[in-house]
């Protein structure tokens, strides 16, 4: 079996920053802050966060903040929970959440909660359980969960549970591994995992593993490295990770590496990107691959970062 090309991946991530002018980079500039979170977290898991110019990153993150308190995906872009969590996660990596005006950010988030407990992603009102996770994870990292009605938030998430044990983005929506991660993560953070039928959900999740060892996001789909994260972290949170073949999954992720230039792709031999590089490395961390920092399955941040935040 191949090895993790850790050094190559570090180099790959560090040079993305320099390539701001190529077309892929231009077409994804509206979510650059997500990209920064994926890249920086990967570097931290690989033990190489020091290689980054911390000051520059932090001042750029802060310039993505909107007057409402929320963060945009880049400078001058509208705020959204999707980008607000990434900003908070990046600041957490650098132990810098204290530079935030926490009441302001948490007010931005809490005003997006609706009467039924659900969350809108921004002021335009789209509702999705992903936004519940983003809000709950953000507020928890800021120690401000008391700003929202947690009970209602949990109630809404539970109402999105399907008969197959999985969760969708709204009540009655199809189960999807990404949504399941969000729902289980939010329930884990709020201490409400007892609402999950662990056997049923674990069953659905373990059926995501296909012959190659990779995991897919939904029935009949091809395996994809990003689901190593979503399925695996969910299985860990509900204590059913032994229901999949972990060795085969490690092998699948390693096969998706670009050994020469670094980076990880969705499937073997596809083009690499920072998104799948992060999920591949984070997945390997969950699988206790040697030489990697442990990552927290609910907060999606290194365990030492979480400990630093909560044990203060």
């Amino acid at each position: 079996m191949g090895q993790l090309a850790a050094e190559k991946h570090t180099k790959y991530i560090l040079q993305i920053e320099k390539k701001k002018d190529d077309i892929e980079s231009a077409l994804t500039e509206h979510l650059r802050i997500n990209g920064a979170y994926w890249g920086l977290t990967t570097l931290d898991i690989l033990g190489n966060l020091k290689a980054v110019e911390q000051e520059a990153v932090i001042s750029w993150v802060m310039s993505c903040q909107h007057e409402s308190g929320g963060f945009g995906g880049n400078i001058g872009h509208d705020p959204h929970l999707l980008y607000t969590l990434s900003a908070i996660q990046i600041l957490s990596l650098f132990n810098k959440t204290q530079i935030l005006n926490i009441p302001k950010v948490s007010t931005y988030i809490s005003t997006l909660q609706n009467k039924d407990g659900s969350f809108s992603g921004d002021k335009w009102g789209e509702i999705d359980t992903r936004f519940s996770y983003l809000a709950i994870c953000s507020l928890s990292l800021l120690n401000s969960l008391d700003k929202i009605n947690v009970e209602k938030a949990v109630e809404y998430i539970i109402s999105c549970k399907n008969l197959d044990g999985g969760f969708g983005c709204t009540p009655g929506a199809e189960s999807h591994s990404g949504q399941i991660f969000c729902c289980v993560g939010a329930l884990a953070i709020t201490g409400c995992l007892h609402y999950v039928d662990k056997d049923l959900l674990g069953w659905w999740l373990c059926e995501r593993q296909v012959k190659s060892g990779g995991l897919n996001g939904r029935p009949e789909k091809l395996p994809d490295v990003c689901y190593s994260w979503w399925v695996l972290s969910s299985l860990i949170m509900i204590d059913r990770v032994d229901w999949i073949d972990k060795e085969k999954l490690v092998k699948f992720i390693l096969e998706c590496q670009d050994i020469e230039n670094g980076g990880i792709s969705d499937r073997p031999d596809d083009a690499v990107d920072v998104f799948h590089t992060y999920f591949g490395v984070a997945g390997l961390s969950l699988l206790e691959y040697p030489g990697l920092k442990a990552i927290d399955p609910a907060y999606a941040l290194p365990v030492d970062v979480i400990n630093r935040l909560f044990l203060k």
Partner: protein
Amino acid sequence: MSEAVPSSYSDPSSLLYQLESILESDPLIDEVGFVHPSQFASMSDTSQANTTEMSFWSKDHKVGISTESIHPLYTAAKHAFMSSLHQYKMLIPLHSKKVDNISATSSPLTGLENELMKHSRALLLLSCDFGTAWNCRKEVVLNKQDIRLYLDELSLSSLVLSCSPKSERTWSHRRWVIKMIAGKCTNLEEILKNESDLANRIAEKSKMNYRAWNHRCWLVSYMPESQVIDELIKYRDWAGLHVADNSCFHYRTRLMSRTLEDSWYKQDLKATEICQLWKEEITWSEILIKRYIGREALWLYRRFLSVCWMKHFAGHSHTGGSGSGSGTHLDLFVENEIKLFRWCKRIPDNVFEDYQAQAMFAATYIIWLIKEMDEDEGVRSRRSVVVEKVGEEVEQVVNKVCPEKAFLLDLMLTKTKV
């Protein structure tokens, strides 16, 4: 006619101007695609020289954009959009104080709004999830309060979906429009039908598109009862041709679930009709399972149908069965499922992968059924009968075709509820 535009001498802002003019000149454009310049030759009249230098192609309300031009176009569109947006944000606070809108058509605000709409349209065709551009369109439309503008948003988002069918922001924009007009327009039902058709067309071209199907599931809560039934019947054949598309069967799950809502089947007349509908769906599902060997989505759909059938029909006496706990419906149903399992677990001598998968799905289906019987008071008493009848056979199949799933047997053998 087809129009070819040479681009060799075009700078980015004139490229943008060309694209915006093409979009402006034909409001009926319904498809945009990105084309490698070498393909332009085969799409254009041969009389046109230098097709490799073309940036755009348009004919019959379709527009092709050269892949070589995407980057400069995007840069120009983004700059144009962001600078108009900047001006707009400075002007808006001044305007909101004015009450009269007599001069609205000629005000600098209107001019700026037109610019914003023009640039954001070009930008979104190139970068479909550029949320800020969608948001500013919402802002402008909201300020004008003209139903036609909302409908224009539906057209633009269909156009964006024609080249980016999975764009989450685009689908979300449609939902925003529909929520805004739901109370205002008289032809909501027609709009919902069109939405469902659009989602279906896109699902046809872009397989297992979660966003398209999710949008369609979202529509269900707005549908009147008659449309729910229509959708179930109208798209049954389509589903039969797309048996690997789990989303399409989930959509049926959503529709079927709505028929179980209280307001529906508490009406006595409806109850028999709906029971009939469920019977037909279960029979149809069995036909598909036997016809298409080893399809995961079909088995998952059957899990759903069976659980609901036991819970709402077979296990209880809603359906005209007399007396509580009369097991006749349930016994018949379970008998049939065991037969189905036995039919599907046979693996021919020249073993094909599909048959192995079929046997695995059949076995895990029975385990599922047994586990779910345990969850439901109305049918729990029958659980041990099933375990006794097929437990061993199921175990054999699991050990043979998917020993890695042996832990599932525990779910069948251990009772969780007493």
